[in-house]
C-alpha cells in the first residue's frame, strides 16, 4: 500500500507534472488513506496496545457515568460493585458458587466437545456417517435447548444431572457441525499420501485427520463455550442451590443489585480467562498453524 502511495506522490511531483505556471496543487491519482483506518493493514504495536487499554477505560468510564446519571442503587458504580464482590467472597459464597458453576461447565462442556469431535470427524470422513447423522442433527439442533429445561427437570430431577445434560444438549450440535467443517478442510492430498505410505483408516483418522483438525477443534471449543455458559445460566435460574446464576437470582430477590453486578463481572472475567487460555492452548500445541491464519 505504502509503496504504491509513495510512487503516486513521486510521479505527481515530478518536474514534468509541475511545469504549469500557476501554483495549483499537483494532480494526484488514487486516494490517500489514514494510517488508522487502512483495511486489514497493520497499525503500530504501541497504538494497538493503547487502543486496547483505552477501550477498557472507556467501558469503565461509561459505567461510572451511567451510574452517576441514574440512581446508584439501581446502577451501582464500579467501586460499589467491587465492594459487593469482596463481601460475596468474604462470606465464602463466591468460592462455592464459582466451583459449582465451573464444575458443571467443565463436565458438561467436556462431554459435548468429545461428542462433537467423535461425531464431527465421523461425519466429515465417511459419507455413510454423514448421510445418517446430518439430517438428524439438522432437525434436532433447531429445538431450542432452553425449551428442554422443564423436560429435563421432570426426567432427571433437580440435582446436577439435568444441568449438565442441558449444557451438553445446548452445545453438542454446534460442536458436531463445526468440527465436521474443520475436519472436512483436511486436504485430500494428506489423506491420500498417508494411504500410499501404508496407513490404514484408523491411523489416517488418528495421525492425519485429528492432528490436522486439532487447532480448528480448539477454536470451535473456544467459540461455542459461550453457548455452554448460556445453557448453564438457564439451568441454574430454574433450579439450583449454588452457582453464579443462582446467586444472581438470589441477589435480585434481596434487591442486592451491587451483588448482581459483581456476578456479571465474574461471568465476564471467566469468559475472558477461558478464551485466552484456549488461545494459548492452540498456540502451544499447534504452533505450525499460527502463520496460516
Amino acid at each position, binding site marked *: 500500500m505504502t509503496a504504491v502511495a509513495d510512487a503516486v506522490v513521486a510521479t505527481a511531483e515530478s518536474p514534468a507534472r509541475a511545469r504549469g505556471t500557476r501554483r495549483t496543487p499537483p494532480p494526484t491519482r488514487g486516494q490517500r488513506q489514514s494510517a488508522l483506518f487502512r483495511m486489514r493493514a497493520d497499525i503500530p504495536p504501541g497504538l494497538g496496545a493503547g487502543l486496547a487499554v483505552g477501550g477498557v477505560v472507556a467501558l469503565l468510564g461509561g459505567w461510572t457515568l451511567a451510574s452517576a446519571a441514574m440512581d446508584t442503587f439501581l446502577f451501582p458504580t464500579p467501586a460499589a460493585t467491587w465492594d459487593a464482590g469482596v463481601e460475596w467472597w468474604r462470606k465464602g459464597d463466591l468460592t462455592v458458587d464459582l466451583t459449582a458453576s465451573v464444575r458443571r461447565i467443565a463436565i458438561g462442556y467436556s462431554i459435548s466437545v468429545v461428542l462433537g469431535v467423535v461425531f464431527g470427524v465421523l461425519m466429515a470422513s465417511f459419507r455413510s456417517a454423514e448421510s445418517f447423522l446430518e439430517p438428524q442433527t439438522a432437525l434436532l439442533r433447531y429445538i431450542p435447548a432452553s425449551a428442554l429445561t422443564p423436560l429435563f427437570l421432570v426426567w432427571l430431577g433437580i440435582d446436577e444431572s439435568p444441568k449438565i445434560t442441558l449444557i451438553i444438549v445446548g452445545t453438542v450440535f454446534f460442536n458436531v457441525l463445526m468440527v465436521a467443517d474443520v475436519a472436512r478442510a483436511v486436504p485430500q492430498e*494428506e489423506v*491420500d499420501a498417508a*494411504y*500410499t*505410505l*501404508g496407513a490404514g483408516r484408523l491411523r489416517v483418522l488418528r495421525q492425519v485427520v485429528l492432528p*490436522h483438525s486439532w487447532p480448528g477443534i480448539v477454536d470451535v471449543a473456544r467459540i461455542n463455550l459461550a453457548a455452554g455458559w448460556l445453557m448453564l445460566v438457564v439451568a441454574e435460574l430454574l433450579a439450583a442451590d449454588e452457582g453464579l446464576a443462582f446467586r444472581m437470582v438470589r441477589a435480585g430477590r434481596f434487591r442486592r443489585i451491587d451483588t448482581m453486578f459483581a456476578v456479571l463481572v465474574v461471568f465476564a472475567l471467566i469468559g475472558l480467562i477461558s478464551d485466552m487460555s484456549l488461545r494459548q492452548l492452540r498456540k502451544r500445541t499447534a504452533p*505450525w498453524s499460527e*502463520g496460516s491464519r
Partner: protein
Amino acid sequence: MNERRERPGLTVTGLTKVFPGQRRHPDVMALDGIDMHVDPGEMVSIVGASGCGKSTLLRIVGGLEQATTGAVRIDGDLVVGPGPDRGMVFQAYSLFPWRTVAENVAFGLEVAGQPRAARRERVAELLGIMGLTDFAHVRPGQLSGGMRQRVAIARALAPEPDVLLLDEPFGALDAQTKLSMHEFLHQVRQRTGCTVMMVTHDVAEAVYLSQRVYVLSARPGRVAEEVTVPFGVARGPAVKRDIRFLDLQDEIEDRLHTAPAA
C-alpha cells in the same frame, strides 16, 4: 512379469474408468482401454491435455481409485488398494504441516513398524540424498515450494517402494525451481535406481526426464502414442538443445493437439 522377481515391473492392461453420471448427466468415460507398462528401473511419463484422465490413471495405479474394468499389476500381483510399495507424490499440500521434515519422511517407516534407530538411519540417508539435512527439524510451512516437493519425494521413497508415482509433482513450482528439480530428480534416479511413473502436462519435462513417454488423447483417455526417448539415463540440460530432443517435443505436442476429442 513373474520372471522378474528381484525388480518388479508395472503393467496396466485394458484399463477403463467410467464415472457414473449425476442426475440427467450421462456417464463419463475418463479412460478407455489403457495398456501400458513400466520396466524396473525405468522412468515413464504420461502426458495429455487437462481432463484426459491421466491423474485418474495414476490414482488407480496408486490404489486410491478403482478401475471400472482392467487391471494394474506389479510383478504379477493385482493392485486392489493403496500401499507403500507404490510411493506417491502429489502436486502440493500433501506434507503433514505439524510434523517436521524428518518426521514427515519417517511416516511410512513408522507405519511399517520399523524400530526407531533404523528409522533415524534411513531418514538421515534420504535427507542427505535430497540435500535436506540442514532442514530436518523445520516444519513444511517454513520451506519453499521446491523443498517441500523434495521432502514429499523423500517421504515416498523412504519405505523403498517398487514404483514411485509422481502426479504433476513440479506443476505448482516456478520455472527456475522446476528446472533445478529436474536435475535433482535425475540425481535421485541415478543414486537410487527407482522406477518412476510420472503424470505431467509439460512435454519438455516428460521428454527430458523419461525413457519413454505415453501420449494420452482426451475424453476418453486413450494411449494415442508411445514414444521412446533416444537419450541415456545420464543426460544434462544440453540435451534440451539437441535437435532430436526438439523434434520429439514438437512431435508429441502436435500429437497432443491433434489427438481426437470424443
